[in-house]
């Protein structure tokens, strides 16, 4: 077969060859007694195996012994720890076994996953339990467990895991459980997915829910108020009322209290009451440190640092930014929208210290990630761009400042009621206009659309294919490509990728 496939050319057979691998695997399987074959097939649903887990999943008290026997025969098992308690199958072998399971005993798969979920949940591994539950038809239990795990998982820096769970559950299941719909709304807000945020906000607004939500919040009304406050669709006064309402509901031990305090602080900032904003922000940071809510610590410390810089207290600002940046590093939340203000704060501090290299590094970080700050988290989206625009103007790059101001206008057109932030934008616009006579255009920043296109340059997709993926016309992609080349000072796709990586717009 291999010879036929390779059109008569001589080639080396490697272990990766599909036919050879399949053949070897099949040999390794069929050479075993029937009971061992069944054991291997059925335990393949597990990503990791240990004796007690196998016993639970197979419903057999001899499974642990079987596992040891199989390990002794080295049937593609890899030990995961020194004590030889946990194992996993070689990835390709597991794929093969799963294929065999689907072929021979498709009816049992759901049961196996449910048993695995039960075992993991009763042994204190709810996240692993959920991974198995998502394969079962028990959507009710999956939904509740997801609602319980969403916030702690997001707080631990794993927004992408939350996104995967929500996608696996599907919109219909999420909509059935309003406390989870709120979390889906937050997922949209925090990832800058405006359509999703709006969609779930509407669902949540229309929903009602009695009893204690599985998400650990005091009540559904409390988290609903938080989502409304975060999206700030009806202005700062409503935002303040929502935040205060939620704060009154959430007890000191609640995971959601830090967020309520943060939103209250932000509402005071929008009301122009900087002194009153300070206390809730400080308290929010402390409460979040106690509950391990990394992103709230980061954004509160960033806001407090900015307030300190406005007062001229550079030492306090430096301390707070150090906390924020360390928290970002520790939890690897560099791509969280809540981390952006820390980058712009660090840039301002670096400018103050005359370290323009560091300032540019932080500015580039913020400029690159600014796409995720959208009008569904309007006070962050506008404040961030305003801060960046001020710094670019100070760096004699008015063109970049103007680009940011245009993006602000776009956000404000959807969220016109942002309190004193709107006044700040107006004042800055006047400053910028008064410098209009300056001769230097400076280098131009990539627009959000161009930034969105940039990662596709690393692929082999043609302009047509990229256009399809981004839902724009081929002409637009081509025009944006030219603009990217021009702005990066290159004339080929490879060079563009190289240059973008060099200046920190691509890569880790």
């Amino acid at each position, binding site marked *: 077969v291999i010879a036929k496939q390779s059109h008569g050319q001589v080639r080396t057979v490697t272990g990766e060859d599909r036919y050879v691998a399949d053949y070897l695997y099949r040999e390794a399987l069929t050479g075993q007694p029937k009971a061992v074959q069944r054991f291997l097939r059925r335990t393949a649903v597990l990503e990791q195996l240990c004796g007690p887990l196998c016993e639970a999943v197979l419903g057999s008290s001899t499974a642990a012994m079987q596992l040891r026997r199989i390990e002794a025969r080295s049937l593609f098992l890899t030990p995961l720890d020194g004590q030889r308690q946990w194992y996993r199958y070689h990835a390709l072998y597991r794929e093969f076994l799963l294929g065999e399971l689907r072929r021979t005993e498709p009816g049992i798969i759901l049961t196996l996953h449910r048993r695995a979920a039960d075992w993991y949940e009763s042994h204190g591994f709810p996240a692993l339990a959920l991974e198995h539950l998502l394969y079962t038809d028990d959507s009710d239990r999956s939904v509740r467990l997801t609602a319980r795990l969403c916030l702690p998982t997001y707080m631990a820096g794993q927004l992408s895991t939350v996104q995967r769970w929500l996608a696996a559950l599907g919109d219909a299941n999420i909509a059935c459980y309003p406390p989870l719909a709120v979390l889906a709304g937050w997922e949209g807000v925090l990832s800058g997915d405006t359509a999703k945020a709006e969609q779930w906000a509407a669902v949540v607004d229309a929903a009602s829910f009695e009893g204690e939500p599985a998400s650990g919040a005091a009540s559904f009304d409390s988290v609903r108020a938080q989502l409304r406050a975060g999206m700030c669709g009806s202005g700062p006064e409503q935002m303040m009322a929502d935040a205060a309402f939620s704060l009154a509901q959430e007890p000191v031990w609640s995971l959601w209290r830090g967020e309520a305090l943060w939103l209250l602080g932000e509402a005071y900032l929008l009301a122009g009451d900087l002194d009153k904003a300070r206390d809730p922000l400080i308290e929010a940071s402390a409460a979040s440190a106690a509950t391990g809510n990394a992103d709230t610590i980061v954004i509160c410390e960033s806001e407090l640092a900015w307030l300190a810089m406005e007062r001229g207290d550079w030492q306090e600002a430096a301390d707070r930014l150090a906390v924020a940046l360390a928290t970002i590093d520790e939890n690897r939340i560099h791509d969280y929208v809540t981390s952006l203000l820390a980058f712009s704060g660090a840039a301002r501090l670096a400018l103050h210290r005359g370290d323009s290299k560091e300032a540019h590094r932080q500015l580039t970080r913020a400029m690159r990630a600014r796409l995720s700050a959208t009008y569904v988290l309007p006070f962050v989206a506008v404040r961030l761009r305003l801060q960046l625009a001020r710094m670019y103007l100070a760096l004699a790059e008015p063109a970049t400042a*103007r*680009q940011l101001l245009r993006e602000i206008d776009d956000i404000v057109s959807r969220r016109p009621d942002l309190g004193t932030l709107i006044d700040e934008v107006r004042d800055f616009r006047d400053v910028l206009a008064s410098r209009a*006579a300056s001769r230097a*255009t400076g280098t*131009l920043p990539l627009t959000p659309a161009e930034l969105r296109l940039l990662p596709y340059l690393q692929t082999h997709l043609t302009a047509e294919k990229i256009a399809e993926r981004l839902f724009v016309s081929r*002409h637009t992609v081509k025009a944006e490509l*030219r603009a990217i080349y*021009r702005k990066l000072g290159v*004339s*080929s796709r490879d060079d563009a990728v190289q240059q973008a990586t060099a200046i920190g717009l691509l890569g880790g």
Partner: protein
Amino acid sequence: MVRFQQILRRLAIIDEGVVQDQAGLRLGQAEAWVLDPKTAELVRIAALVATRSPAVCLEWSTTRAMAAGATEDEITDVLLAIAPVTGLGRVVDATPGVANALGYDIETALDNPIDH
């Protein structure tokens, strides 16, 4: 990449470095001008439309005007203002190039039922 390919590529995207240093065209503005940079860039757009320049020139010039502080409305006003003297055809011709530079995907916008 050999030299002639480099130059053709860079001309095709209007690389300002090549245009100024190698083609010897001065794109910047002399200090003595009374015209402010934004107005100068708007006038240049008008001239490009009038001479039926390729879309890439319009994109480039429009971007420069925006960077100099022109608004979208000012740029569309330029198109409207020169239509009587250039004729409608030239202005219509120029529209996609200008729209592209403003980040407005006019082709998709015209194809789709909803505005975005």
